[in-house]
């Protein structure tokens, strides 16, 4: 092997590195290395003059490999690899030595910091000494997208992508599209009807030639990588053929079973065969297998007997389909923080304690009461309603530490709607702070207080209990310092938002990260807010964090734009730092095959073979192979040993 000609470039990063590391000394020490023919330090290596210096040095000194000692490779690796390419050598001969995050920022002592920076740089030099010139692998792209979740986020993302010409697969777990937005009565701050603004989009999705809607389906398994995912989707049986169903409602008239209607949050009941809403898409009935007396025409079969269209088929079975897609958008949304966690607000013991979504259904013209605000226990009009904000939010000791962001606004909306429905009623709102950042939001809250006359009390509710046919609410008004006692007819809790159960399932299936609260983790909190850490998987909506409808729509559009940008390329380039098998050493023990998390290795004629497109170069195979028969290019065992040696020397 001819001797390498390596150049080392040490960055000051202003004072970020130079304050704790003697950069000039690092550069000098590096020049003493055997393979290093050029070294320099510069105040901002990533600046234009800095980059030009790298390119010039490569050309002038015929360098064949480069080490840049600077910040994390997640920031500037691409910059310097591009520079290497521009100077005419392979980008993959360029190594980054991270002497900022892993050295300068974690040390105070200048001598220790310098010593460590030298070791880090030296190990990178040794690694670069054995780097091969590699070219990126071109990967074909599947021009289809899968969107998981059919709420407003999924609908918006699907429409945006389909209008750009991509084929979209919209997978929804429930029997209808629409998500939580379809359950809302009005939306803040304009008080326009939620269904009226959502249903046109739902119709557009269902009629769009580029969008395939798959309701009552769940994604079970996803394999592959960016550009070429394979998704296994379970189609749950609805036992009703939507093509034949005429929505005549004859079946629900004869079904003998009654269970609480989850779409109305238990305020109404439904039969075992049901349609979630009048606006449901697809417009068809669904037979709830668990509630049905047994899908047996002898046992019951009443619905099948009356169905003139012969749409009901008890023999439907779950079906699994495999779909190939190039990118995935996860829009699995939120659930309300379970009321059962809030024993202090009388869940299960005190009647007429509702959550926000139940109150939405009470106000909604298409809801349980056709838009009359009535209390569930005796169907009377409540005259005193207490709204409790931050129920479960901002309580790190017992509940969720985070602010759920939308509760201040939707409680103001609830109070306002209640006063419109019951002008002589009294609405009390217990709050900690009012957070109304947003266009027209603060004005809306002010209007609720001043024009609609909702009574805002700053403080928390300590206790509530049933007292005759009223609910006694005890709390404190911290502005006057007095205890407050209200005889309420109804209590509405502004429960915290938490990631939906489907979000947890999706994260598991897609192997994408979640943050400490369970929301999907974005790749970078500021600069990559819609990307997941896995390339080709994007996030939209409340699954990523609490947000209101405008933000959700904006994020869905952003995710769609990212997918369009990704899939508009003819081919994707894949890092060539993939595993390689030394066939002479391989015994075909298959240990690497089972260890590979990307299913990239298979056995061919008794030897392991790597699918370079699927391989992500993680090195799990190297770690399990007993004979060093498989290793990752540019991270070979030889390189790793030399790096360790350089650090210990």
């Amino acid at each position, binding site marked *: 092997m001819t001797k390498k000609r390596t150049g080392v470039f040490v960055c000051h990063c202003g004072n970020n590195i130079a304050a704790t590391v003697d950069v000039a000394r690092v550069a000098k020490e590096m020049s003493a290395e055997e393979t290093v023919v050029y070294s320099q330090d510069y105040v901002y290596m990533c600046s234009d003059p800095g980059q030009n210096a790298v390119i010039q040095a490569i050309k002038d000194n015929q360098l064949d490999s480069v080490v840049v000692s600077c910040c994390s490779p997640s920031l500037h690796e691409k910059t310097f690899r591009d520079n290497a390419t521009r100077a005419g050598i392979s980008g993959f001969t360029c190594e980054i030595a991270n002497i900022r995050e892993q050295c300068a920022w974690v040390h105070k002592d200048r001598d220790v910091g310098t010593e460590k920076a030298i070791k880090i740089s030296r190990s990178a030099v040794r690694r670069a000494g054995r780097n091969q010139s590699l070219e990126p692998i071109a990967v074909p792209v599947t021009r289809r997208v899968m969107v998981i979740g059919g709420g407003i986020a999924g609908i918006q993302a699907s429409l945006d992508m389909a209008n750009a010409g991509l084929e979209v697969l919209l997978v929804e777990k429930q029997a209808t599209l629409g998500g939580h937005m379809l359950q809302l009565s009005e939306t803040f701050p304009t008080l326009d009807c939620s269904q009226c603004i959502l249903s046109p989009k739902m119709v557009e999705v269902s009629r769009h030639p580029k969008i395939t809607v798959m309701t009552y389906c769940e994604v079970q398994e996803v394999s592959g990588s960016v550009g070429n995912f394979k998704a296994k989707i379970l189609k749950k049986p609805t036992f009703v053929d939507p093509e034949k169903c005429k929505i005549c409602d004859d079946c629900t008239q004869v079904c*003998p*079973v*009654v269970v*609480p*209607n989850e779409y*109305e949050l238990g*305020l*109404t*009941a*439904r*039969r075992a065969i049901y349609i979630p809403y009048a606006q449901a898409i697809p417009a068809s009935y669904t037979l709830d297998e668990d509630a049905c*007396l*047994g899908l*047996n025409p*002898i*046992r*019951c079969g009443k619905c099948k007997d009356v169905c003139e269209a012969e749409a009901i088929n008890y023999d439907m079975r779950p079906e699994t389909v495999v779909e190939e897609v190039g990118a995935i958008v996860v829009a699995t949304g939120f659930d309300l923080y379970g009321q059962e966690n809030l024993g202090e607000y009388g869940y299960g013991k005190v009647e007429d304690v509702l959550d926000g979504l139940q109150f939405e259904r009470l106000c909604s013209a298409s809801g*349980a*009461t056709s838009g009359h605000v*009535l209390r*569930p*226990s*005796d*169907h009377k009009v409540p005259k005193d309603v207490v709204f409790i904000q931050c129920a479960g939010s901002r309580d790190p000791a017992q509940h969720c530490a985070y602010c759920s962001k939308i509760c201040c606004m939707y409680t103001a909306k609830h109070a306002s709607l209640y006063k419109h429905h019951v002008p002589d009623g009294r609405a009390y709102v217990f709050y900690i702070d009012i957070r109304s950042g947003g266009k027209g939001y603060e004005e809306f809250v002010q209007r609720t207080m001043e024009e609609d006359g909702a009574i805002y009390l700053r403080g928390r509710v300590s206790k509530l209990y049933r007292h005759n046919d009223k609910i006694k609410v005890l709390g404190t008004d911290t502005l006057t310092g007095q205890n407050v006692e209200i005889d309420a007819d109804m209590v509405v809790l502004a429960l915290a938002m938490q990631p939906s159960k489907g979000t947890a399932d999706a994260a598991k299936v897609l192997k994408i990260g979640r943050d400490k609260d369970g929301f999907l983790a974005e790749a970078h909190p500021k600069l990559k807010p819609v990307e997941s850490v896995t390339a080709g998987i994007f996030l939209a909506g409340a699954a990523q964090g609490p947000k209101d409808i405008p933000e959700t729509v904006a994020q869905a559009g952003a995710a769609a734009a990212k997918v369009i940008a990704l899939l508009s390329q003819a081919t994707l380039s894949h890092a060539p730092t993939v595993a390689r098998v030394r066939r002479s050493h391989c015994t075909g023990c298959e240990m690497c095959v089972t260890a590979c998390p990307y299913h990239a290795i298979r056995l061919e004629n008794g030897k392991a073979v790597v699918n370079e497109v699927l391989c992500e170069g993680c090195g799990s195979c190297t770690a399990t192979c007993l004979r060093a028969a498989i290793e990752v290019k540019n991270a070979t065992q030889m390189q790793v040993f030399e790096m360790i040696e350089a650090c210990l020397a």
Partner: protein
Amino acid sequence: MFFNNLKQLHGTVYINDIWCKGCGFCVQFCPTNVLDISPEFNAKGYHPPYAKNPEKCHDCQYCQMICPEFSIFVTKDNEIAKGEAEK
């Protein structure tokens, strides 16, 4: 109390102990587990069924349909007052 006033359909099971020969089909196949085998004997020396959870009967009449001895039948309860929707 649900807002849409849907009521669970209820039925009452009647068992003719004398005809029963204790095959247990009704107990086995009742979708809501209303019935169980009685520890008592009937005149023929068989254990007839009895309604262990009568309130669970949804008037599906499956037991009536499968009984080989015609010794069980169900009538629909019209008494809506007590037939309030179950949770």
